[in-house]
């Protein structure tokens, strides 16, 4: 598979490259996910054990939602950058 400029594999690699350039920025989301999950769960329960269990679920929902958005954007990018 070649792109218009003749680089082998470019259509496939371009989305991956673009996605990985800013991937380090995702680490900044981790403390926010933890804090938001814990505080949200704490508004729903009074004891620590259910708070932590609920926070784990909320955290997984947030990460799952982010993954879905990532896959959608990645597919869109792949589709846009495919050879004509």
């Amino acid at each position: 598979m070649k792109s218009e400029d003749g680089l082998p594999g470019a259509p496939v690699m371009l989305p991956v490259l673009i996605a990985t350039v800013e991937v380090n920025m995702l680490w900044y989301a981790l403390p926010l996910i933890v804090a938001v999950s814990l505080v949200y769960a704490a508004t729903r329960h009074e004891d620590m054990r259910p708070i932590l269990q609920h926070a784990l679920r909320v955290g997984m929902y947030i990460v799952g939602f982010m993954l879905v958005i990532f896959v959608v954007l990645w597919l869109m990018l792949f589709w846009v950058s495919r050879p004509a």
Partner: protein
Amino acid sequence: MATEAERTEPGRVELKDPLLAALLAWLIPGLGHLYQGRTAKAVLYAVCILGTFAYGVYLGGRSDLGYGRAVYFSFRPGDRRLPFLCQVWAGLPTLPALIQANLAQRRKPPLWNGFMAPPRLEGENAAGLANSPTLNDLNKALSTRFELATVYTMVAGLLNILAIYDAWGGPVFAEKKEEDEEGQEAAKQPRGERKRVADEQSGPAGETHSEATPS
């Protein structure tokens, strides 16, 4: 389906002076819960909210520029800082921003190496402000970190709104525990009958928060 831990959770929470607790929770995240004797949640709120805010303050600055530059109060023409409307809910930690804004309004140089000081407006050349960075300077110097700092501090303020509500109204329980186990007949009873039954079960008590808060 409620988990085992959620089933054993007490259904009612004693809330000592909800209004004062809400005020304290706004001033210092977690203080309202500490006042109510809900120590574990006080620590959780304080660590999560103050930690998020502090990290945002750290991200939004540099030793030469001063820290906390993403938290500032400014409603001048050309610089209306709307994120502060979210940040201010973090309470007293945002007080330096108000002090610095007052100084800037009187065209005095900022204190504390510019900590939470509003940036100098373009073309503003008052005495003592010559070394203060403009908003463009801050964005250029801090790049993405300035935006991240804004997001972190905004999220901290918004999370504290949840904590304030929790101090005032108690937790909103995720699931109706005992009611689900006992069946749904009780839910079909008239509201007055349900309230009478609930009053009989709870007996004379102080101000409590019912778990049957609508979600």
